[in-house]
């Protein structure tokens, strides 16, 4: 009744090609953006900013990057965290070594560094496919973390390998409170998500999808596989690199190479799969799910112990948390293998008919 596009006519090509062709979607997205930019900064507590919202946005961006590579271009990668590490350490070095470089420029340059690394490690994808490729992207993961640990220059010869991110200062304004950092991250993520949404609707995105669906056929009809695949690696790594820079600068403040572990790559892959492969919205949904789940489990266990006095032996609760996490992932994949984005799509189709299903 409310979600129905009847009567919305598209009279020009521009109207037909807009990002959100349905008016209700436009209203919805505006409301969400208003909520995110105006209401939340005024109402949320610092804890919510720094423990939930900022990591959620940063991991959304990383998941978006991986989704471009895996979901749109069909190249399975297990090295996402490594690209994030490149972004984080590159921006640290840019800020450290180039006096007075604008933060945003440093972030963009660090994204470019990650993209360059992505292209190098994307080269094998021209010959290797599927799980063979996935297993070889592990080389990226281990090699880059090893490089960052062993080569002192990257960490400015810090003895422990830990770097402390500089302050984010733009036009003399220091983003140092959680709310300010949140707004900074939110702006970067919104703009990059918009760019990604447009990219996947364009010729580039269509060529990625053609390669994903059947690379030989795509080659036959004139897409250049080398260019397309490497572009996907570059763009994906760029997104992951910026996400890594944000992770270091707006979320943690201090990072070490080992922090960008294989487990983090897996977590981001989970976000993509649970959110929905090949969906921009899915990256956000998946990230929300994976970031919130441990927090919720923590709260639940705390509640069990304090309110219901269920005493778990010490050490067990973290194991049980791991079990529940694994079980929930299995459960979600069984119930909806196409991810949360698909659930939303089904919901929209239901809404279209509601409340008169016949």
């Amino acid at each position, binding site marked *: 009744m409310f979600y129905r596009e009847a009567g919305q006519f598209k009279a020009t090509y521009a109207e037909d090609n807009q990002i959100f062709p349905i008016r209700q979607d436009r209203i919805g997205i505006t409301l969400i953006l208003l909520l995110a930019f105006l209401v939340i900064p005024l109402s949320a507590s610092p804890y919510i900013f720094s423990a939930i919202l900022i990591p959620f946005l940063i991991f959304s961006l990383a998941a978006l990057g991986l989704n471009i590579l895996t979901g749109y271009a069909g190249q399975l990668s297990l090295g996402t965290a490594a690209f994030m590490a490149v972004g984080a350490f590159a921006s640290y070095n840019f800020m450290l070594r180039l006096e007075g470089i604008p933060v945003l420029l440093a972030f963009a340059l660090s994204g470019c560094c990650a993209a360059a690394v992505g292209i190098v490690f994307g080269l094998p994808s021209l010959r290797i496919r599927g799980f063979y490729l996935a*297993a070889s992207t592990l*080389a990226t993961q281990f090699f880059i973390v090893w490089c960052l640990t062993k080569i002192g220059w990257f960490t400015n010869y810090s003895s422990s390998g830990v770097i402390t991110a500089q302050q984010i200062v733009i036009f003399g304004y220091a983003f140092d409170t959680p709310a300010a950092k949140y707004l900074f991250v939110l702006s970067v993520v919104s703009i990059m998500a918009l760019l990604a949404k447009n990219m996947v609707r364009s010729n580039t995105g269509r060529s990625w999808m053609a390669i994903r669906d059947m690379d030989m056929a795509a080659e036959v009809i004139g897409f250049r596989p080398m260019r397309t695949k490497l572009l996907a690696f570059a763009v994906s790594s760029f997104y992951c690199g910026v996400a890594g820079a944000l992770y270091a600068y707006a979320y943690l403040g201090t990072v070490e190479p080992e922090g960008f572990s294989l487990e983090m790559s*897996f977590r981001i892959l989970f976000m993509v799969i649970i959110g929905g492969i090949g969906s921009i919205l899915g990256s956000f949904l998946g990230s929300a799910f994976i970031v919130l789940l441990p927090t919720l489990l923590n709260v639940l266990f705390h509640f069990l112990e304090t309110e219901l006095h269920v005493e778990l032996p010490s050490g067990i609760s973290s194991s049980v948390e791991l079990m529940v996490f694994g079980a929930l992932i299995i459960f979600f994949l069984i119930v909806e293998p196409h991810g949360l984005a698909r659930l939303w799509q089904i919901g929209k189709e239901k809404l279209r008919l509601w409340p008169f299903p016949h």
Partner: protein
Amino acid sequence: MQFFLEVLLGGLLTGIMYSMVALGFVLIYKASGVFNFAQGAMVFFAALTAVGLHDLGLSLWLAIPLTMLVMIVLAMAIEKIVLRPLVNQPEITLFMVTIGLTFFIEGLAQAIWGASVRKLEMGIDDVPLEYLLDTLGIAISQFDLVAAGIAFVLVAGLAMFFSKTKVGRALRAVADDHQAALSIGIPLQQIWVIVWGVAGFVALVAGLLWGARNGVQFALTFVALKALPVLILGGFTSVPGAIVGGLIIGASEKIAEVYLGPYVGGGIEGWFPYVLALLFLLARPEGLFGEKIIRRI
């Protein structure tokens, strides 16, 4: 030269241990097309269960069959709860499910047996064999040789099982073509249980050997990561590939660490196998013994 031989042999023997883990991957991938990331967790779970039962006072010879029973129950549960609802899903979904399974099994193992490191005494000392030390001057651990012997018996047994028994033939049929196997009356689901059970058995053997060497601890799950380059080098679908791949990876990683490591700051064991496997794949995308990939439009 003696030193080189020592490094080489040590590497080869470690490689055999890698092969044991890789073998579990290959069995499951061949029979069900599932890239089972949980193999490492299964190794950990099996070893921890065996040691845990042993610590409760059972003799090792009782604990091992009991663990095998547990692994079979686990295989049945996995087939029933996880795999059956996901028939016909894309490979990546199945892969992700096994990562979820990894978390679950790791959590389960630690929830039951605790997270502390346990020692496993198999009665074989990890000391250099005196005979070789005296005659050739090469220090080769007695334990490694026993492990290699066990691996050899295991592989020979599996080869016999696959080629001579009725179940083995059914397994190969399923590996070749699921639908054709179904149409001639091979019970697919039963076969999957058997395969996961056999993989559980391999995991148990690998877990006991690795556990006896390094202690049964969470780090056992990382051994599975070392099995991945072995897999891509040998080919996902080939049992001999897993063995040869393991030998190559084990030997080259030790040689690289000893001769190349000092120049670049050491610790290259972590990534060298992957880079080696990657370079190898560039020349031969299906691995050493993998099935030739034929692609049509």
